[in-house]
């Protein structure tokens, strides 16, 4: 859970290999080899493959060989009305999802981490309950929330709202209505993964020296001012890390949408993401080249976000 940017602590690691330790020269590559070979075979080569495939029209099981089409498939993403409308909408959904989830989930995670960091009686039980959703695979999360969001009065949420309001609030089609479909996915996603960010922030909170809080309370700093002047600076780097992680996860959104689209009557226009389109185009419609072009664009977006955030962290003085 650390940044790739973390500067290595052993001073000499950047220096040229001196061949210093006798037996180590052969053992190093030997130890690294299995991991490197696998990474190359299943990540680096397929990545290059995606770039190459994006220039070809490819279908699996088609006897005709792949046909070179140049940048046509990239151009289509933005200019061919048949494809670009859906693609740009997917991209928009991705950004909307990230813009809501990243700040909301990070703030919530910080709040929850502070809450469970308090030494109160029964805290172990609360912590256990808070962490539980983390072990739930998305396939199961989708089943549970599909029932909660079910559209008629038999859905749990609708039933609950109806009962609380004495029948004044009628049933709503949460997943089917375009105005609430993305919101429903957001709630489901935050429910499942906020605990992860919370754990990381809890670790950071516990590493803030308690003397700082004591000093602050001697200075008669209130709760809020302690939070602003001690807590936030103390966990700042972790907070940035968590934000980066959440952003990248937000762009990878796929499982929930695909699962619900295959089973429930989710409004797919309002919820489809770039990854969803990559898979439906490449796999379901067997248009692998076009899907690969989308995957490359997706990757560029993720990489740009990662680089921007990394640059911001560097300016802030690095993680250490």
């Amino acid at each position: 859970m650390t940044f790739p940017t973390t500067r290595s602590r052993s001073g000499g690691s950047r220096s040229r290999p001196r061949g210093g330790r006798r037996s180590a020269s052969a053992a190093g590559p030997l130890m690294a080899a299995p991991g490197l070979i696998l990474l190359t075979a299943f990540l680096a080569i397929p990545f290059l493959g995606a770039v190459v495939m994006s220039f070809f029209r490819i279908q699996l099981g088609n006897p005709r060989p792949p046909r070179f089409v140049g940048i046509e498939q990239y151009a289509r993403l933005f200019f061919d009305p048949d494809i670009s409308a859906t693609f740009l909408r997917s991209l928009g959904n991705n950004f909307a999802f990230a813009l809501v989830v990243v700040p909301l989930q990070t703030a919530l995670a910080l709040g929850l981490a502070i809450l469970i960091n308090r030494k109160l009686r029964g805290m172990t039980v609360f912590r256990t309950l808070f962490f539980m959703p983390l072990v739930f695979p998305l396939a199961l999360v989708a089943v549970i929330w599909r029932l909660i969001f079910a559209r008629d009065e038999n859905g749990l949420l609708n039933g609950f709202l109806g009962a609380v309001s004495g029948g004044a609030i009628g049933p709503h089609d949460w997943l089917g209505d375009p105005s609430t479909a993305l919101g429903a996915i957001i709630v489901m996603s935050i429910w499942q993964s906020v605990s992860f960010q919370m754990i990381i922030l809890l670790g950071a909170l516990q590493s803030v020296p308690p003397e700082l809080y004591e000093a602050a309370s001697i200075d008669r700093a209130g709760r809020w001012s302690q939070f602003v002047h001690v807590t936030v600076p103390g966990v700042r780097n972790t907070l940035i890390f968590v934000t980066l992680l959440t952003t990248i996860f937000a762009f990878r959104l796929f499982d929930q949408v695909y699962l619900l689209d295959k089973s429930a009557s989710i409004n797919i226009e309002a919820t489809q993401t770039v990854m969803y389109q990559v898979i439906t185009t490449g796999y379901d419609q067997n248009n692998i080249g076009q899907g690969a072009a989308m995957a490359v664009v997706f990757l560029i977006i993720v990489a740009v976000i990662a680089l921007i955030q990394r640059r911001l962290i560097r300016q802030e003085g690095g993680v250490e």
Partner: protein
Amino acid sequence: MSIVRSRSGSIATRIVEYALLAFFALVFFAPIYYLVVGSFRPGDQVLTGVRGFFPTEFSLENYIDVFRRFSNSTTGYLWQFIAVSVVVTALVLVGGLVVNSLAGYALARMRWRGRSFVLLLVTVLTIIPFEAVALPLYYMLSGSRNTILIQAIPFVASAFSIFLFYTFFLGIPGEIEEAARLDGAGPFRTFFTIVVPMSKPAFATVAILTFLAQWGSYLWPVLMVTDTSVRPLPLELSVFQAAQPPEWGSVLAFGVIFILPVLIVFLIFQRWFVASIASSAIKG
């Protein structure tokens, strides 16, 4: 202890804190509770609004139905889905711990030609999410569809795990290894007898994160598995819930069978699990 503490929190704040804790506990637990309660209700009683939330019925019918339903070669066998998930996850977990820790160690502790290039490569590869390469991999490996091995092998090596190990190994003192080396132990023996036992937190963190990701893995099986005999649990669950008309009771029972072993392990190791992730996250 509570007297000392009360300096920083009056009774009023204590009440607010407990109220918040209770509220969020409810939010996090309610869906899980709904799953479990629903699995014991007759199928047509699951989707009944708020009533479905109260444990008014108790029947094991759904569980019996799941066992009965998945007991022929057309639907697949329940034990088979579980076995596939267990085997694939175990392969990725064990293989990954060995391969990634070795690579992390070679990068952190050894001096060899090309090391800094490899370190850069691993760093760059951490940015590439699996989703971005899923399609070309599917195209390249479509000849190996419906095998156990192909579900596991692409996930054994992980740039992120290598990086986690790398930063951890950088942080441990080198004197002990030096002593072992002077005693004539080779690098592999030093690694397995000295370094590995010292690095339990790193291994635990990587193991937990790998396990959670792999146990719930969905995208790759969607692409690579069509045959019920090698179908992992998440894929079968999604197929099962998409059936028309949906049999909610049985689907939920299947879900409980899916999550129960994980939940039990989690409850036993909960403290440890949290401490381990939290400490590795802020390291470095």
